[in-house]
């Protein structure tokens, strides 16, 4: 994956979010405070504008821009996504990066999010999609496309599984049983992100 692949990945992610924004907002309305779609839109809008205005060489350059956009956003998800991308950027400073680099970025990103947010897998948060995606990449043996496809599938099924969980962290923890059966919007957003990597 080189710099322009990374750009295209982000472009597909923006487009996927545009399609799913309303769904994500509805999920946060049922499990949190309903601003997840708006928080993400402002972060991604800022990312899109900044990428358009910035020369980037390596994938890391691209992810730095996206990280900054998220870190300039309020809410809980903004700064956590920002730190996830920041770790991904640190692992992808070469002009062309491979599965091992991505795996390291995903893994470091996930552990940073866990450390900062205090959520463990199973707490019904974005971590429930991040962690399986990182594991899938780390375990991948084939080429980058197969690895990313495996990661995307893992993220999606992690996100799907959040429906059954009771939230332990974030606002959803305040509503308890009411959120049972509802997907966690942060985890769904992670699934969209990793799926977008597959082209």
């Amino acid at each position, binding site marked *: 994956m080189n710099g322009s692949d990374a750009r295209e990945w982000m472009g597909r992610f923006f487009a996927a979010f545009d399609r799913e924004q309303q769904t994500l907002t509805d999920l946060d309305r049922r499990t949190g405070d309903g601003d997840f779609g708006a928080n993400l839109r402002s972060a991604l809008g800022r990312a899109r504008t900044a990428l358009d205005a910035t020369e980037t060489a390596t994938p890391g350059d691209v992810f730095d821009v996206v990280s900054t956009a998220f870190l300039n*956003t309020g809410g809980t998800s903004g700064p956590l996504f920002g730190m996830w991308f*920041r770790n991904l950027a640190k692992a992808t400073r070469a002009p062309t990066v491979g599965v091992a680099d991505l795996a390291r970025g995903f893994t470091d990103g996930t552990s940073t999010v866990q450390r900062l*947010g205090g959520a463990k897998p199973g707490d019904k948060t974005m971590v429930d999609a991040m962690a399986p995606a990182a594991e899938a990449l780390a375990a991948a043996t084939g080429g980058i496309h197969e690895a990313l496809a495996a990661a995307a599938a893992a993220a999606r099924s992690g996100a799907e599984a959040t429906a059954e969980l009771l939230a332990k962290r974030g606002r959803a923890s305040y509503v308890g049983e009411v959120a049972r059966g509802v997907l966690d919007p942060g985890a769904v957003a992670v699934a969209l992100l990793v799926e977008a990597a597959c082209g």
Partner: protein
Amino acid sequence: MSRRQFLNDPEHVVPEALEGLVLAHPGLLRLNPEPAYVTRAKPATGKVALVSGGGSGHEPLHAGFVGTGMLDAAVPGAVFASPTALQVSAATTAVDTGQGVLQIVKNYTGDVLNFRIAAEIAGDEGAAVEQVLVDDDLASERADGEGPGRRGTAAVVVVEKLCGALAEQGAELPRLARFGREVVGDARSMGIALAAGAHPGERAPAWELADDEVELGVGIHGERGIGRRPYASADELTADLLDRLVAALGLGRGDGVFVVVNSLGATHGLELALVHRAVHRQLAGRGIEVARSLVGPYVTSLDMAGLSITLVRADDTRVALWDAPVRTPALTW
């Protein structure tokens, strides 16, 4: 009943107010507009820098406490919302002169998260950063210790004043952080409201009270408190708060305290002063000495009609730090 405010676009309240504040104190403050933070007009050198911040709507907190003897930078978020991690990290690296930075953070999930991230980022850029988490609000304490812990309220002003003075004396970062945490451990606050405030641009107060009720244990974000109690005389209401605070800090005969009688927004100076009289007399009745007091609006909750009382254990060292010179828009001596 509907409230109105003096404002233009509700979205622009915070940047416009920051501009207006800094224009009123050109000799004390500088505004960095993007990302938004306020620093001293004359940066300090050769000392640990102090950075605080949090949601707006609590004015004069925090920008009103930037200046000699107190903060080096304040980072304002939107009304009742944390500043972003990059705002905080930008302010942190801007005021670091190599001695490191002490971040003073009120205990709210968003603030804690963004300051923690900011500390990591500033750390990556070479700044030594330590944090003091302020969690003085007794009303939000849970017996089982679960949940996000006590909220940070008016004790933050005392922490900023005392740490600010200690930093000015050249104390090193680890000692400052340790000292700040000790002060926090010895600080408890509790709030009480007669009427809720309203968000800029909103015309209804956040909640209504019956005529014979007051809201006990309110925070500084317009949340309801931990319960209602009957409206009563200022002396009785003061006694209710003091009983809890004194018990929580285990204060007794011979102890000394700093007192903050803090307006939550719309409470008049006459009311604050007479509540301060009650605090003083009631503590004296328990043999507790008021070492120093602050009486006024320090940590507000928009235009809430209410007040909070903060007690912080005082000793000779802390009193000397309290008395050290301070020169900020909202606190000067």
